[in-house]
C-alpha cells in the first residue's frame, strides 16, 4: 500500500491562483477526506494527485516517489469520478476490464478479476448490462469496480455521491467506508458535504479559498475547531457564531444578548461560538424568544432570538413552545468556543 505526501503544492490557472501552498501527509491505509465549499481547490488538488492537472509548484509523492512528472497511468492510482465516467458503449464487464485489456492481460485473469470485483460489489448479475440500463447506485458501484480491479496503491474519489438521492447516499457512504476498510487501500475522498467527511474519514482536511484551514480527526475538528471557518463548517446544524466583545466579565453580543463566559476567558474575545446541541434548557437560563420550532423526532431544533441576536438550539427534549413565546436557555460553559479578532481559536 502507499503513503501520499503533498508538499507546499501550488496551482495557478493562468494568473489566478487556485492553491496557495498546501501540505497534506497521508499515512498508509488511511481514509482522508478533503472537504470545503465549492471552489476551495479540493477537486483541483485531487486531480493533481491523479495527474490530470499539472503542478505549478511544490511536489506530490506517492510511496516516497515524487510523481510531479509521472503520467497518470504510471502513478498506480484509480479514480472514481463524480459523473462516474463509465464508457457508455461498453458493458459493465468491458468497463471493468478496460484497463486490463489495454495492459494486454490474459483473458482468464481479466475474467477472474472482474468476477472478484463484481462479487465484492454485488454486481455479478449485471455484468452484461450497459451503463444506461443501471440505476445511479449501480453505476456508482461499477465505477468503484473499475477502480478495484486495478489493485491501485491509492483510491481517489471525486464527490462520488453527489449525484445520488439522499437515502442511497447514506447507504453508499457506509459501503465505500466498509470496502475501504476491507481492502485497506489508502484513499483520498473529496466532498463538499461535512457529514460525509465526519462519518467516513480517518482524517479530515478542511479547505477554503485554496488554503488548508485545519487537518485532524473528525472529532478533533468538532471539539476544537482551529478557527471560525472550521467551527461554522463542521457540525450540523451549524455552530452559533456570535460577534461582540467582553465587558464586565461577560460577553456582550452585537445584538444585545449577554452571554456567560467560561472561567479564565481572555478579554480579547471577538466571536462567541456555541453549538446548538450545547445549549441547554434551564430555569435560570437567559430568556429567548422562539422564532421557529423544527422537530426532527430525535431532537428539536429551535430558532430563537435573545434581544436581536439570533441563536439556534437543538434539544433532546421535546420543546412545546410556539413562536413568540419565551424559552430559557444557557450555554454549557465547558463547550463554549472563543475566537479572537483574527478568527483564530483562543
Amino acid at each position, binding site marked *: 500500500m502507499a503513503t501520499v505526501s503533498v508538499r507546499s503544492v501550488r496551482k495557478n490557472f493562468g494568473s489566478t491562483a487556485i492553491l496557495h501552498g498546501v501540505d497534506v501527509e497521508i499515512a498508509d491505509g488511511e481514509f482522508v477526506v478533503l472537504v470545503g465549499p465549492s471552489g476551495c481547490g479540493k477537486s483541483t488538488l485531487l486531480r493533481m494527485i491523479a495527474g490530470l492537472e499539472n503542478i505549478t509548484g511544490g511536489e506530490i509523492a506517492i510511496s516516497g516517489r515524487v510523481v510531479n512528472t509521472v503520467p497518470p497511468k504510471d502513478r498506480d492510482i*484509480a479514480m472514481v469520478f463524480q459523473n462516474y465516467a463509465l464508457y457508455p458503449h461498453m458493458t459493465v464487464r468491458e468497463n471493468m476490464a*478496460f484497463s486490463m485489456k489495454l495492459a494486454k492481460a490474459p483473458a482468464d485473469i481479466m475474467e477472474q478479476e472482474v468476477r472478484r470485483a463484481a462479487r465484492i460489489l454485488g454486481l455479478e448479475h449485471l455484468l452484461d448490462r450497459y451503463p444506461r440500463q443501471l440505476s445511479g447506485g449501480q453505476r456508482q458501484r461499477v465505477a468503484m469496480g473499475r477502480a478495484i480491479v486495478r489493485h491501485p496503491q491509492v483510491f481517489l474519489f471525486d464527490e462520488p455521491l453527489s449525484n445520488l438521492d439522499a437515502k442511497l447516499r447514506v447507504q453508499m457512504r457506509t459501503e465505500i467506508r466498509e470496502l475501504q476498510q476491507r481492502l485497506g487501500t489508502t484513499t483520498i475522498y473529496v466532498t463538499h458535504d461535512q457529514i460525509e467527511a465526519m462519518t467516513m474519514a480517518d482524517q479530515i482536511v478542511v479547505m477554503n479559498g485554496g488554503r488548508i484551514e485545519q487537518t485532524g480527526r473528525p472529532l478533533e475538528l468538532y471539539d476544537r475547531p482551529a478557527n471560525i471557518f472550521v467551527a461554522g463548517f463542521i457540525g450540523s446544524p451549524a455552530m452559533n457564531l456570535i460577534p461582540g466583545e467582553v465587558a464586565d466579565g461577560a460577553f456582550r453580543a452585537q445584538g444585545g444578548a449577554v452571554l456567560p463566559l467560561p472561567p479564565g476567558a481572555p478579554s480579547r474575545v471577538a466571536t462567541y461560538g456555541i453549538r446548538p446541541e450545547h445549549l441547554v434548557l434551564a430555569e435560570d437560563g437567559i430568556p429567548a424568544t422562539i422564532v421557529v420550532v423544527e422537530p426532527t423526532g430525535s431532537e428539536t431544533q429551535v430558532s430563537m432570538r435573545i434581544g436581536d441576536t439570533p441563536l439556534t438550539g437543538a434539544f433532546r427534549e421535546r420543546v412545546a413552545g410556539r413562536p413568540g413565546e419565551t424559552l430559557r436557555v444557557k450555554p454549557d460553559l465547558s463547550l463554549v468556543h472563543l475566537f479572537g479578532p483574527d478568527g483564530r481559536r483562543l
Partner: protein
Amino acid sequence: MSTATSTAPAWVRQRQQPGALARLFDSKPFLIVVCLLPAVGLLMTFLTYPLGLGIWLAFTDQTIGRPGIYIGLENFEFLFEDPIFWGAVFYSVFYTAIATVGKFGLGLWLALLLNQHLPMKSILRAIILLPWIVPTVLSAIAFWWIYDPQFSILSWLAMKIGIRETPFDFINSAWPARWSLIWANIWRGIPFVAISLLAGLQTISPSLYEAALLDGASPWQRFRYITFPMLLPILAIVMTFSIIFTFTDFQLVYAITRGGPVNSTHLLATLAFQRGIPGGQLGEGAAIAVSMIPFLVFATLFSYFALARRKWQQGEAND
C-alpha cells in the same frame, strides 16, 4: 323583476345551440384535413408531382417541343446498350466512393484538430467553413481557373520554381479530369463533415478521456476505444447525407468540365441534364435520372440500418 318564472337567475344567459359551422370546426377529422392541407399541397406540387412527372417521362419518347407517347422500357433498353451511360454510372460510383473517403478522412482529422485547445479556435472554425458558404458555382469557377490549361496558377507556380517545363494537365484528358473533379468535391465537402463531426466530438464527456487516461490508454487507444465508437452514430448520419449529396452532384462537374473530355467525367445527373435539356431528349434524360433511384434507395437503406439505435444507446433494461 319579481316576475321571473324560470328557476335560473335572470342574468344567466341561455347556452345557444352551436351552429353547423361551429360544429364542423369542432370535428377532429375536419380539423386534421384542414391543418394538413397546406403542407400536403406544397409537397404534392413541388415534390410528388415533379417526381411523378419525371418517372412518367422516363417511359415516354417526349422531346422538347413534341409531346411524347408511352414507349414502355425502350429508353432503359437503349441506355443499357449505351457505353456513355455505363461510363457515367461508373464515374458516379467512383466519384462518390473516393470523394467520401477523402472528405471523411480529412474532415475527421480536421474535427479532431479543432477539438483540441488551439489559439484562435473560433477564427479557425470560421475559416474552415468558408468553402461551404461560397456558392458552389463560384467555387467551381475558381477551380476551373485553377485547372485551366493555360492560366492555371498551379502550373504557373510549378514552372516558376522550375519543377515543371510544361503546364499541368488537369482537365484535358480523362483520368486527370476525373481526379481533379474529385479533389474539388472533397475540398467543398470537408467543412460539412468537419463541423458536423466536431459537434459530435463535443458531446463526448471529457471525463471519459480522463478515465481512459487513468486506465492507461495511449492517444491512439483513446481514439480507437472512446472517440470512434461514440462518434459512430453521428458519423453514420453525416456519411449518409454526404453520399447522397455527392452521388447527385451536378454543379461542380457541369461548371468545370461539362462532362468532358469525351464524356469521361459525366455523372448521372450531368448526363441526364445533357441528354434532356441541351440534347432535347426529355424522355431519355428522365430515364437516366430515374436510374439513380436504386442507388439512392441503397444509400437510404444504409442509413436506416446504420442509424438503428445501438444497444448501448437504449435506456430500457432488457433482462
